[in-house]
Structure formats: structure tokens, C-alpha cells
């Protein structure tokens, strides 16, 4: 029987539970409950990318995202006894992740400072560049921060539902399970969030175009 304090097993051993391909999340959880705590490493590996991806999309900062993802996995481990299996493990995990990221976002309390006008004023030219050269968007730190600022113009709930759909690629029903709401509510909220994001981007684009023309006129005169 494995023990809590046993060292992290080798890479081959680490993947043993899932490599066999026959074991389900529920079975791995059962193993952990029986004392095979090293099996939790397999569960972490299995969901690392998804949790990390979600945290990154919500927090837009690699360090914050990693810290949040670690917190989530520690929280999940300590709450494993509360997991009754009413929903799938991944849904439960996403629920914990979503709530944790919302908490982090609220603590940051950044939305207070972000308005469309100030964003256009400060970052207008950068936003134009961002959409003109999308290939570097995922790697360039500045672009990531810019994307974060754009997403910060949305409410936390709008950002959350868009992240679940656009970054994580969850189906509508899965989103409904994670957010604990009806399918119709997901359809409505997602449509509103998308519309809001499109409107914000158009507003930024227009404002930038206007201010750019004015600047050119001033220079010309």
C-alpha cells in the first residue's frame, strides 16, 4: 500500500494507472481513498493542462495561474472525501477551479481600474498590433497582458463562461454542469458575453481609429 509520505514515483510508475487505459477517474479516486496517495499524481497529470489552461485564461499571468492551479489541486485532494460521484470528476474539478479563479480575480479587484476609454488611450496601438499579428499572441508576454486587459472589460461571470467555452472547449451541457445552471441559461449567458466582447472590441477599434485620425490631423496642421 502506498503512503502519503512515500516519494513521488518514477515517470513510468507515475503514468501506470492511466497508461493501462482501463482505469477510470472514479477508480483512481477509490485507490487514493484506500491509501494509494501516489495515485493522486496521476490525476494531477491527467488534468494539469486543462486546469492550468483555465487558470491562465482567467488570470492571464503564468505565475498566478500556476499558483492558482496548485491551490486547486491541493484543495481537490483535501476535499476528495466530499466527492460523491454525482457528477463526473472533471466537472467537479472545473467547478472548484472556476470558483477559485473567481475568488482570485475578485481579490485582485482589477476591474475597477479598467474602462474602455482608458484602455484605448493607453493601449490602442498595441491592440491594433495584437489583432494584426495573432501568431505571437500566445507567447508574447505583453500581448498576453493586453489580452487580459481586454478581457478585464467584461464582468467576471462573462469572462468565466467565455473561458470555459473558448479556451477549454467545453460543450454547453458541460458548462451548465460546471456552473450549476440550466442549458438555456448557458445559451443566454454565453450569447450575451460574446455580444459584449464583440461590442467592446468594436468600441476600442472605433475609438482608436478616431483618435488616430485626430492625431494625424494635428500633425498635419
Amino acid at each position: 500500500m502506498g503512503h502519503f509520505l512515500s516519494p513521488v514515483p518514477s515517470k513510468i510508475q507515475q503514468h501506470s494507472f492511466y497508461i493501462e487505459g482501463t482505469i477510470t477517474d472514479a477508480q483512481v479516486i477509490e485507490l487514493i481513498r484506500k491509501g494509494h496517495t501516489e495515485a493522486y499524481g496521476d490525476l494531477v497529470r491527467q488534468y494539469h493542462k486543462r486546469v492550468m489552461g483555465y487558470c491562465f485564461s482567467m488570470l492571464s499571468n503564468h505565475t498566478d495561474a500556476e499558483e492558482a492551479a496548485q491551490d486547486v489541486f491541493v484543495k481537490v485532494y483535501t476535499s476528495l472525501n466530499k466527492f460523491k460521484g454525482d457528477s463526473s470528476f472533471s466537472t467537479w474539478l472545473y467547478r472548484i477551479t472556476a470558483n477559485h479563479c473567481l475568488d482570485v480575480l475578485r481579490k485582485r479587484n482589477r476591474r475597477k481600474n479598467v474602462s474602455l476609454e482608458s484602455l484605448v488611450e493607453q493601449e490602442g496601438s498595441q491592440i491594433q498590433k495584437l489583432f494584426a499579428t495573432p501568431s505571437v499572441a500566445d507567447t508574447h508576454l505583453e500581448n498576453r497582458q493586453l489580452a487580459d486587459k481586454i478581457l478585464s472589460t467584461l464582468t467576471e461571470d462573462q469572462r468565466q463562461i467565455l473561458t470555459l467555452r473558448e479556451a477549454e472547449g467545453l460543450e454547453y451541457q458541460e458548462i451548465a454542469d460546471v456552473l450549476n445552471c440550466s442549458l438555456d441559461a448557458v445559451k443566454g449567458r454565453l450569447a450575451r458575453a460574446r455580444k459584449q466582447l464583440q461590442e467592446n472590441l468594436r468600441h476600442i477599434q472605433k475609438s482608436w481609429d478616431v483618435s488616430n485620425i485626430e492625431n494625424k490631423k494635428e500633425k498635419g496642421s
Partner: protein
Amino acid sequence: MKHDELKVKILGLYDGPVTEKERLWAEKHLSSCADCSHAVEEYKNFAGILFALPTLSEADEDIFTNKVMARIKSAATEASQSVLDITVRWFIPLLGSTAVAAWVFFSILPNTPGLSNAINGSAFFSSDANEMNAAWSPAPASKSNEEIVVSWIKE
């Protein structure tokens, strides 16, 4: 469905749960309507930029997993340490003082001359079995009032 309504709902029709009939209708509309297909393409483009995920290697995965397991391990150690702290801080002194009190109560006090009877008014703590029996035996029956009156009359 009118075109304006459709434009609002087009993304939901594009990726949401729809009936087969709705899906076919949306696809047909998108292929024939440049305005709507442009809206979908534009949205897909900026969503792809705004929600781009970081690239994570297997090494990142290993490092991350080790960090999580180490945190879990240290949390468990802290938890067991706090149980030990409580045991050392409270339980052991409590047990010790209870043992001392019991020793004083059961061994010292009963052997202190005159103290045991003074405390209980009986020979409960006495080591002498006879004394104890005597203490618990019923008191000798005294004369009833009637007998006393009869003896007075006789006198």
C-alpha cells in the same frame, strides 16, 4: 428567423446544441450570407487570440505534479505535527496531573491518621477490615418509646 435575430444567435447556432434541422439551416445560411460568415470568422479569430493557451511540456507537467505532491505532503506533515503539538501541550500534562491527584487521593490521604475519618465520617478509607465492617454494620436496636413508658410505670 429574421436575419438580424440570426446575426445575434449565429454563434450559438454555430457551436451550441441545436437540432439537426437548425444546424443544417445555419450551415446553409452561413455559406450563402457573407455578413454572417464574416461575423463568425471575425469572432473565431479574436477568440483564438484572447483565449490562447500556454504551451506546456511534459517537463512542466512533471515539475508541476511534484510541486503539488510536495505541498500535499507538507500539509499532511503540518497536520500531524499540530496533532502532536496539542498532545504534548495539553494531553500529557493533563494526564500527569490526574495521575498525581489520584495518587494523593487514594494513597496518601487514607494513610494519614485521623484524616480519613474526618473526611468521610466513616472508615471507608481504612485498611482495617474489621473497622470497615463495624462501620457498615447496622446500629444496635434501641428501646421503643412504648417499652420506656412501661418500664417507668413498673418502677
